[in-house]
């Protein structure tokens, strides 16, 4: 099958790759670009473990084709920390022990960051609805929600 040549930006780096037309952005990130933060939980848009942003919009990378990345700006969990310096959300997830196996965590961090950029002062209900497409089989969600709420409060104070 003829491969497609794609030029795009991932976490502010210019990247180029060749992919099969059927390959998803998730496949490309994991298997061609070695960015294995985004996880494949379901491959059908239900679990959110593959969450990334495309031009600032939160999406499931399992439901985007690699070819669609042409000319876009992709952001993944790998871009959230600045070098060794963790993002406030990452600090809070550790502090609250908001993860166990960690499979859902990259997707939840990307999704939560995207929420706080749009809405720095969300209610608990808003956080729960925003994250309804991110499934977690371990934590029971409570610690995740509290970590996000507390990060939001800290970031509001800091700004």
């Amino acid at each position, binding site marked *: 099958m003829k491969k497609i040549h794609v030029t795009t930006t991932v976490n502010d780096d210019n990247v180029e790759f060749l992919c099969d037309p*059927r390959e*998803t952005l998730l496949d490309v990130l994991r298997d061609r670009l070695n960015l294995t933060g985004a996880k494949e939980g379901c491959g059908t848009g239900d679990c959110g473990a593959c969450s990334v942003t495309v031009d600032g919009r939160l999406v499931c990378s399992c*439901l*985007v084709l690699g*070819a*669609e990345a042409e000319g876009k700006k992709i952001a993944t969990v790998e871009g959230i920390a600045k070098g060794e310096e963790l993002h406030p959300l990452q600090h809070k997830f550790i502090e609250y022990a908001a993860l166990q196996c960690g499979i859902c965590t990259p997707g939840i961090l990307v999704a939560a960051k995207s929420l706080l950029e749009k809405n720095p002062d969300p209610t608990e209900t808003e956080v729960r609805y925003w994250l309804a*497409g991110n499934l977690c089989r371990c934590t029971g969600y409570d610690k995740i929600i509290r970590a996000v709420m507390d990060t939001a409060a800290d970031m509001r104070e800091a700004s």
Partner: protein
Amino acid sequence: MQYHRPTSFNEAAALANQATGETRFLAGGTDVLVQLRADIVTPDTLIDIKSIPGVGDISQAPDGSWTIGIAVPGAEMREHVQLGQDWPGLVEAMDLIGSTQVQGRATLVGNLCNGSPAADSVPAMVAAGVELSVTGPTGNRRIAAVDVPVAPGRTSLAKGEVVSAVHVPARGTNAGDAYLRFIPRTEMDIAVVGCAVNLSLDTEGTVTAARVALGAVAPTVLLVEDAANALIGSSLDDKALDRLASAASAACNPISDKRGTVEFRTHVAGVLAKRTAKIAYARAQGENT
């Protein structure tokens, strides 16, 4: 699978017209890619229509009518304050589709053309009187949203035809719409029944025009004229609401599945119709619900 990224609707229509085998347009891909990955449908030709100029725009004409680009995802409709003020029911129906992530991609036209009888935005489009521009190999035509679905998974679009714009009428004064669905959970599920109501009132609060549409209770969306007639001339008194519920239930021709039986769906259609009508009525009176 061949992947194409045309830059005009004429080119998209020509590509689809020349294609052999399974052809799909790629808007948000939240149906197409799920079907591809589940090996339900592997298109031979996939035509990505998001690089056509203007497909991401929402615009209002001087007469108050709206044009929504075919690649506008639910999230952008939701963030458009003025559209939400004019057509809260249409926006809330679209917003019910999937998660935040799905909202980042899913489109109105994809929801309509995928052809699910339970598609959430479709009753709202039908109640609103939405029309679509369609570009085909031999030219353009304009059709009502209600005329697109013909059977589960099938539309009235001919080979080579692509929807090129969504037209929402001007809201007008003293008018409002609403959409409600019944699902067994609070998020992320498929409608057991969906109901959209769109009303216009006179200054006294009497209903002068109504459209009532039901989803998930028949092979295709239903525009229920008897239900609309039950409301016209009333000020939504209990008698009118009871007539509405009876007409909505009478129109149902549902299936039984794990989400609900025929009896349940038929009953819920009436209940939802009443509740939806009350919200649309309150909005038409200027309440912010």
